[in-house]
């Protein structure tokens, strides 16, 4: 598993701290998206690990782990595509 991770970012304090351009290291994440969410998906025991939610998530926040699927709630926007795509209705949306 290799994906960009959240890291802390120091705002430039003085002129010499400012970069010359807006180019930077790839995969440099400094803010979460979790505040966009009204509902959070919960994966229940009915999951058969068919990976359709993993594949169709626009944000790629459903992660394969040794113990089945997990969700990165830092970047899930709560769109509910995973709930709809699930053939076993194993994902429930819960109001935040």
């Amino acid at each position, binding site marked *: *598993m*290799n*994906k*960009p991770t*959240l890291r802390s*970012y120091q705002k430039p304090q003085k002129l010499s701290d400012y970069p010359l351009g*807006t180019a*930077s*290291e*790839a*995969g*440099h*994440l*400094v*803010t979460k*998206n979790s505040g*966009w*969410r009204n509902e959070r998906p919960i994966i229940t025991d009915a999951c058969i690990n*068919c*990976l*359709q939610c*993993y*594949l*169709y*998530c*626009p*944000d*790629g926040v459903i*992660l*394969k782990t040794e113990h089945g699927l997990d969700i990165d709630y830092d*970047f899930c*926007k*709560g*769109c*509910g*595509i995973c*709930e*709809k*795509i699930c053939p076993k209705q194993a994902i429930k949306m819960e109001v935040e």
Partner: protein
Amino acid sequence: MSNQITAKTITDSEFFYGHKACSGCGGSLAVRIALKVLGEGAISVLPAGCMSAVGFNYPHLCFSNNSIISTFAGTASMLTGVEAGARAVGIKNFKAVGLAGDGGTADIGIQALSGAIDRNDDILYICYDNEAYMNTGIQKSGLTPFGAKTTTTPSGENIHGNIRPKKNLFEIVAAHDIPYAATASIGNLKDFMNKIEKASKIKGTAYIHVVAPCPIGWGIPVNETIDIARKMMDCGLWYLAEYENGQFKLNKNPREFSSIKDYLLSQGRFKHLDDADIEILAAQRDAKWAAIRKNWNTTEEEL
């Protein structure tokens, strides 16, 4: 084909992550899946459009492969330069890939795209088609379908949204006698993933046109992005096809179509259409499919 890419075999790595696309965005799914298939060797070029706006918010940068924003009109010409440059400095195992919207491809970037295909540069161009300029607030593009309401083609008493049909960009590209072109949809990711895999192995220019619904612009709930993409194929307003070795090939030939009316009226942008408008769209669809079935290879084969 035995080496199919599936949800099980595709890499766990994410190359487009933490992006600021709207909830339920179809375009971001197309970009995410394309980069997962291509892997870290992908050098992506994005013109002005949703995906560059949501991917590059300095210092928040969501691509974990090498990625750059091009001019609006210059996706394909920058790809040409990236490919030549990477080759000149001896980089191995890379793929220059363009990820442009429908406006950036069919209207503003079509000259550069045409030039790149003409030179047969070794690049992959992916157009994610959400059928209007969504990033700037839903203006009509050359790929906006007949009848769709946008801010520049409003619906009123006399004119019911866009009065012109959708440009057939897949066949425009194929008419260059390109080595490989294909249509796809985020409603069928298995097909899309394997077309990208196939296109990435092509020597010369490859083009993939992927339909990627936009919940905001199409007027649908954010969790229905995939469903509407599937309905669009089921009702015959989109088809999965390829162009290779001078031949058109249809990948899926549905025996019957689902209701075109259901597809249209479930979207805010088509709500105003009357039966006569829907008849026009149905007639255009039937004429297109008659031509496809007459002239193209319609033996269905799994990719």
